[in-house]
């Protein structure tokens, strides 16, 4: 019995190390790390991981995606430090906290390790305090402008629109709303109201409904994420507003995609996170190889419409979107 247990322990350890050592390779190979604040257990980050791995294969370098099991900044910082000690040729990380990243990234740059930011940045008022070389991710404000431009051909001059925010004060969501509002008022002379619909779906429907009752001349609704899109879609369906009101949103999510296919939603902005993983490795590789300085890359240029919804749905299942 004792021998059996001993054997079992040795066997399982060997298997574990065997599994790990297959991912460990030659010492002179270039190694890049992409470190996120959440690991590949989150479907969003699983797509980023896929981008990192594909870039590694395409370039013939070792590209490693790492992230804590759940949202955990200190652990992410620990992983970043470990990547630094492993003498990585470049590291990409999400700026998940404006304060916690100042020291680690300064340290890495001080040691001559190139660092780029992916997915999220520090808020505007702290911009420039963290010395990463470039940002690869969605520019929220530009994405807001894009969605407004996409809908503009369908809107008359001076049209009235509403931007529904489900989390008032959220920096990213407010930037999306700002982009929409600016384009519609400046370019179209439209009137845009901002509406706090809360994160509660039932409340959100009530708030939207009473807004439309009070403002019957509203021709377009924008929501800034799934938590706003889901109640808005339900209201449009329930109240038979299809074809009477234009609607667009942000992010990929089954309800929104279905609404696009049904012609209820004009389109949704996709931040194309696969690019955040793939391009981070590419930019770090080019920096290590040819000293090319990494450049900002706006991944949030994806806009999914009725024509592309079906193919995107398949790509979501395949783990690329």
């Amino acid at each position, binding site marked *: 019995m*004792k021998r059996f*247990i001993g054997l079992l*322990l040795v066997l*399982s*350890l060997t298997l*574990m*190390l065997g*599994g*790990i*050592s297959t*991912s*460990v390779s030659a*010492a002179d190979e270039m*190694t890049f*790390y992409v470190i996120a604040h959440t*690991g*590949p*257990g989150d479907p969003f980050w699983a797509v980023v991981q896929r981008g990192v791995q594909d870039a590694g294969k395409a370039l013939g370098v*070792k590209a*490693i995606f*790492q*992230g*804590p*099991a*759940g*949202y*955990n*900044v*200190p*652990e992410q*910082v*620990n*992983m970043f*430090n*470990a*990547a*630094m*000690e*492993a*003498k990585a040729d470049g590291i990409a990380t999400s700026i998940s*906290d*404006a*304060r*916690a990243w*100042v*020291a680690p990234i300064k340290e890495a740059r001080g040691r001559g390790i190139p660092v780029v930011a992916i997915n999220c940045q520090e808020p505007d008022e*702290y911009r420039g305090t963290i010395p990463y070389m470039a940002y690869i991710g969605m520019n929220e404000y530009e994405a807001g402008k894009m969605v407004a431009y996409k809908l503009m051909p369908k809107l008359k001059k001076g049209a009235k629109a509403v931007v529904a925010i489900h989390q008032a004060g959220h920096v990213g969501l407010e930037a999306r709303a700002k982009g929409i509002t600016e384009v519609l008022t400046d370019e179209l002379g439209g009137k845009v109201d901002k509406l706090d619909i809360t994160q509660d779906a039932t409340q959100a429907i009530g708030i939207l409904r009473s807004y439309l009752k009070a403002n019957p001349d509203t021709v377009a609704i924008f929501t800034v994420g799934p938590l706003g899109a889901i109640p808005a879609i339900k209201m449009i369906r329930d109240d038979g507003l299809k074809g009477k009101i234009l609607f667009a949103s942000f992010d990929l999510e089954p309800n929104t995609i279905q609404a696009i296919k049904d012609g209820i939603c004009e389109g949704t902005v996709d931040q194309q996170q696969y690019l955040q993983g793939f391009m981070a490795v590419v930019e770090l590789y080019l920096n290590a190889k040819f000293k090319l300085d990494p450049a900002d890359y706006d991944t949030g240029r994806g806009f999914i419409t009725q024509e592309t919804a079906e193919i995107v749905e398949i790509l979501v299942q395949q783990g690329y979107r």
Partner: protein
Amino acid sequence: MDGQGPSPVLGSRITPEPDVDTLQKHSFWKSLLHHREIGVACALIIVFTVFFSLQKHFLSSGTLGDIVTIAAELGVVAVGASFLMISGEMDLSVGSNFAFGGMILAMLITKQNWNPLLAFIVAISCSAGIGALNGLITLSIGIPSFITTLGAMMFWRGVALYLTQGWPISIFEDVPLLRWLGGGRVVATVHISAVWWLIIGVIFWIVLQKTPYGNWVFATGGKRGAARALGVPDVKVKLINFTLIGLLAGMGGCFQLGRMGSMSPVWGQELALEAIAASVIGGNALTGGVGSILGTMLGAITMASIRIGLVMIGAPAYWYMSFVGFIVVAAVALNVKLGEVISWKK
């Protein structure tokens, strides 16, 4: 080790009449085997060997500094967990208390403009109070500490989320106290929190091994009835240990705030189980009565090494859990087997 006898099958296999040399060797090994830290020491050696063979940068001063820095934040809580575990109780709310302590400190400094030192004292006192409350509820009503602290874990996490509305609190100004808590470095990548952890570890080791209070802690967790008959104030001991683990959890949170400059109400979620795992790897019995502070500290270092090592060799992050799970069982199995061998040799 309740004096389990040797199995007859095992006993018959041993050759009789060893010569003097082997006897001396035996007594050396025997004295070594008496240390509960032997299991964790073996685990640590294996972990280091494996990582060093796969990644030559693993044994650098930078890596070792990172390891002790991570171990400090976990280890300061694990030391408290061991103390409480030896006295026969456990605390699942340490993760929430950790975040709560850090939050209070961050909030008092940024929102109330308090003197940082006073804010620190208030923050760790709050955490100690939460620990004491856990103890009071557990001991006065007589519900298992598992239940009390499970409830406390959820309750205080909720309170921390409410107080901050879910947002992290960051301190952008240069506050010297934060550098003293964990932001500053002593040498290479070793942060000052590692020094505080070492000091706390030594204090708790002395209390446990060299004072009557330490004896009471062991007695309370070992045979409570006998301890009570001998006049050990077991309820008081447990209450003090609940308070101490609260205090240490709050300190851990403040160390992390010092290093990060930010504290989020959702950080430290896995801390309770990690602290228990570090204690168990270090040779503490979940049932109480036996344990070692040195073992616990080595346990925390083992876990931090796994965390850093796996990233350095580029293994998928999820191996961490599997690896820790493996080490927990292997280290405890080794301790149990050694326990059998020792009692047989007696």
